[in-house]
């Protein structure tokens, strides 16, 4: 009797003491929710949930690998309490959701008639799949069987449809799917996924430098789900209002519809969706991942900087943008004139990004107002350079410094900044790019009598967007082709009075594939102008380098851009990344946006301590060969929606926006022209409504 009591007394107190001290000595930090949830689990460690004990199950629940009802022992109250712990802090945890990337279903052609086991996995392991398409959904529904939460069913077209409400992100479907179709990803994983060779991508999406899922948003527009369309675009491009207006839409060149009649007017649809959101006067919510506690400095608040900041912020990092100009937007604000992208539209868009919690500091120039060392000292974990290309090339002819000579970007920036500029009566703009055209069209609106565009090749070789050239022609700009400026003629007041140029003729094609212009001897001609704007190209201003800090170690190319790995946007200094014009040289806004996202992915990896490596099978805007067709069949021809614009007579006197948004009906019609392409399949004969 006594022994028994004493023995158990000793055993009980011994166990208690040892364990409680051990729990202090061997204390390891854990997510506090793990302990809370473990407290709600049965503690029987029976393994019925398939995890290794209750603490493992609790961890899995916290990591969103298991649903709150994983434990088979506890009652509904505990389940809802666990749900509460997870749900009450929903802003902190990023839920994983299953996404179906293939909606090919029954329109994907079969290679053979399959009579075997009713299982995707069996079919895939024996025959690699019956579909013509390498990634196409087999539609036998392994994912449906694997889903323990009844969240997947096969849709009417025989491809899986995920019920986002029921999906808990357990990943069972992704595991059984033998193809890369069902993906269980968190928001940031989705945001930062770059196009890969295995993805189910339409030609347009492959072409888009921002990698927007174009067929998906067009399908949303077709179905009248405009908010979903906006969200789909925003997964890849935070500047949809701007892009919808200024993007030269390279995607449309690869549109399969273009093989049958005209390409779908993708960009107008994007603009339609974007304007729908702005005009609805309420912003769609943009969820962000839980705070990671890492800080990033973004140098340059242009499209690349804004895009990178936006994606990093959504991935949970804290971002500060440093901008040399008075306002954010970079070239969008200072390079693109008001009539193409109204400032209030841009402000609304940038505001949306800042509202996510991105800090901005304007009127501060790196190397002048602050230096790199102070940035690092301030505790930033990584720095992103998107300083753009703001230095105009010089013509290199005599008289270039006379009064009345301007450079393109400088001029546009001054106009954008509303700095007073003395504008002449007759102006020559040198160059054939978009900047030159922007200058011309701006000058027209400033009341200039005559605007010449002086270009040393022909119209065919002009790098500017076709629509812009056409618009400029409409607005009465005179093109002087095959003319190379030779000298700026000035008077005794050092005021420009003319531009002397040499006539050229086209010779052999050069490295860029354009025929090289050759001067015709003795063909000097003088153009009677009192103002000259040279817009023949830009490079980055790297004057912040050479201050004896780590920036000096960053390699720079001979074109004065950051030498970055194109797949990751990382420089040779681990914590410095760069994208946009500062890394690629002058390029499209949408290139900068895509670059910003690519850099954000690398920086996210870097900030999370993972190796910064290129994503496997990254597409990098190459095309998947099998998806580029020579012709499409089964398509009824239908005209493309025309873009409404202000009449010329009206627009040349004002900076009112020229291009207008298409009507909802037109948007619907245009969306219906989309073939909903994927890698190989497309909707043969689109039912045209209305």
């Amino acid at each position, binding site marked *: 009797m006594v022994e028994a009591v004493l023995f158990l007394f000793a055993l*009980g107190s011994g166990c208690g003491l040892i364990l409680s001290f051990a729990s202090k000595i061997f204390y390891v930090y854990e997510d506090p929710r793990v302990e809370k949830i473990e*407290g709600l*689990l049965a*503690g*029987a460690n029976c393994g019925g949930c398939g995890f290794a004990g209750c603490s493992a199950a609790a961890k899995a629940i916290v990591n969103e690998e298991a649903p709150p009802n994983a434990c*088979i*022992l506890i009652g509904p*109250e505990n389940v809802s309490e666990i749900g509460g712990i997870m749900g009450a802090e929903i802003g902190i945890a990023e839920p994983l959701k299953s996404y179906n990337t293939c909606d090919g279903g029954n329109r994907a052609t079969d290679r053979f008639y399959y009579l075997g086991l009713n299982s995707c996995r069996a079919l895939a392991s024996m025959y690699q799949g019956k579909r013509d398409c390498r990634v196409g959904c087999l539609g036998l529904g392994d994912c449906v069987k694997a889903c323990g939460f009844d969240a997947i069913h096969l849709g009417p077209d025989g491809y899986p449809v995920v019920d986002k409400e029921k999906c808990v992100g357990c990943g069972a479907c992704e595991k059984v799917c033998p193809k890369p179709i069902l993906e269980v990803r968190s928001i940031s994983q989705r945001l930062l996924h770059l196009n890969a060779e295995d993805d189910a991508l339409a030609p347009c999406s492959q072409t888009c430098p921002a990698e927007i899922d174009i067929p998906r948003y067009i399908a949303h527009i077709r179905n009248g789900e405009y908010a979903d369309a906006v969200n789909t675009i925003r997964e890849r491009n935070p500047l949809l209002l701007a892009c919808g207006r200024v993007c030269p839409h390279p995607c449309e060149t690869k549109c399969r519809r273009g093989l049958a009649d005209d390409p779908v007017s993708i960009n107008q649809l994007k603009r339609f969706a974007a304007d729908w959101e702005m005009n609805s006067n309420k912003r769609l919510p943009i969820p962000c991942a839980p705070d990671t506690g890492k800080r990033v400095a973004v140098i340059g608040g242009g499209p690349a900087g804004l895009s990178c900041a936006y994606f990093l912020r959504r991935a949970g990092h804290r971002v500060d943008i440093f901008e040399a100009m008075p306002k954010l937007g970079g070239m969008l604000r200072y390079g693109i004139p008001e009539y193409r992208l109204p400032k209030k539209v841009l402000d609304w868009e940038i505001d949306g990004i800042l509202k996510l919690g991105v800090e901005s500091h304007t009127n501060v120039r790196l190397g002048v107002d602050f230096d790199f060392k102070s940035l690092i000292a301030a505790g930033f974990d990584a720095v992103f350079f998107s300083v753009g290309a703001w230095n105009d090339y010089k013509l290199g002819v005599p008289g270039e410094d006379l009064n009345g000579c301007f450079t393109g970007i400088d001029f546009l920036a001054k106009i954008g900044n509303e700095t007073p500029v003395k504008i002449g009566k007759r102006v020559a703009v040198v160059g054939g790019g978009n900047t030159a055209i922007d200058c011309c069209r701006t000058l027209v609106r400033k009341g200039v009598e005559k605007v010449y565009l002086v270009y040393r090749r022909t119209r065919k070789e002009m790098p500017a967007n076709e629509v812009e050239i056409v618009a400029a022609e409409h607005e009465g700009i005179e093109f002087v082709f095959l003319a190379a400026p030779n000298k700026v003629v000035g008077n005794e007041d050092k005021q420009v009075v003319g531009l002397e140029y040499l006539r050229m003729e086209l010779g052999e094609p050069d490295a860029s594939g354009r025929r090289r212009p050759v001067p015709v001897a003795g063909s000097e001609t003088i153009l009677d102008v009192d103002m000259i704007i040279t817009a023949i190209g830009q490079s980055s201003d790297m004057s912040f380098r050479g201050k004896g800090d780590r920036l000096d170690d960053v390699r720079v190319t001979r074109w004065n851009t950051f030498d970055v790995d194109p797949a990751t946007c990382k420089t040779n200094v681990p914590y410095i990344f760069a994208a946009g014009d500062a890394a690629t040289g002058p390029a499209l806004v949408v290139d900068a946006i895509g670059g910003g996202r690519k850099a954000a992915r690398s920086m996210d990896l870097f900030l999370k301590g993972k190796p910064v490596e290129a994503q496997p099978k990254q597409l990098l805007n190459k095309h998947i060969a099998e998806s580029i067709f020579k012709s499409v069949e089964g398509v009824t021809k239908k005209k493309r929606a025309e873009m409404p614009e202000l009449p010329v007579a009206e627009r040349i006197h004002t900076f009112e926006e020229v291009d207008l948004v298409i009507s909802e009906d037109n948007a619907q019609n245009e969306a219906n022209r989309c073939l909903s392409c994927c890698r190989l399949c497309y909707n043969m004969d689109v039912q045209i409504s209305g």
Partner: protein
Amino acid sequence: MAKTIAQEFTKGLWNEIPPFRLVLGLCPTLAVTKSVEGGIGMGIATTFVLLFSNALISILRNIIPPKVRIACYIIVIATFVTVVELLMQAYTYAIFRQLGIFIPLIVVNCILLGRAEAFASKNKLLPSIADGLGMGIGFTLSLASLGAIREIFGYGTFYGMHVFGPSFEPFTFMVEAPGAFVCLGLMLCLMNLAGGK
């Protein structure tokens, strides 16, 4: 939302009947169901422990510090298991012998800890008793039915009485380990069919 005590009792008999609905406590289920007698004996022993541990834990639920609650539950359960062990030794020795080490092993039966944690630790005394009793009886019924099937086919007897007459060639497979697994598997299947799970 609040269930009546009767409901707490009856849920263990069908809706959540262990080990079929709650696939737990398999070891004793498989090991002691060579005969109806063994099954019932084990069932009663488990019910006894379940009933008293549920009751005691329900009484102590506000005293036990949450961090060591599992350890406390284990002590309570182990105590009642030992009580059962001693009582069975003293009064029903034949069954005790048949059940062997599975009596002390009641202590690690997940059902007990499971009920303690999931139910008794947050409910009042009466519902906890009802829950324990219901689950226990459900468990007993399961064991008895499994035992009956295995005994009838394996030995040709039911509760020791011959069913098929002396000429019956016993299907020994059923009372051996493989038979136990297969039999339980098929019964689960039947339950799924019946319950339309």
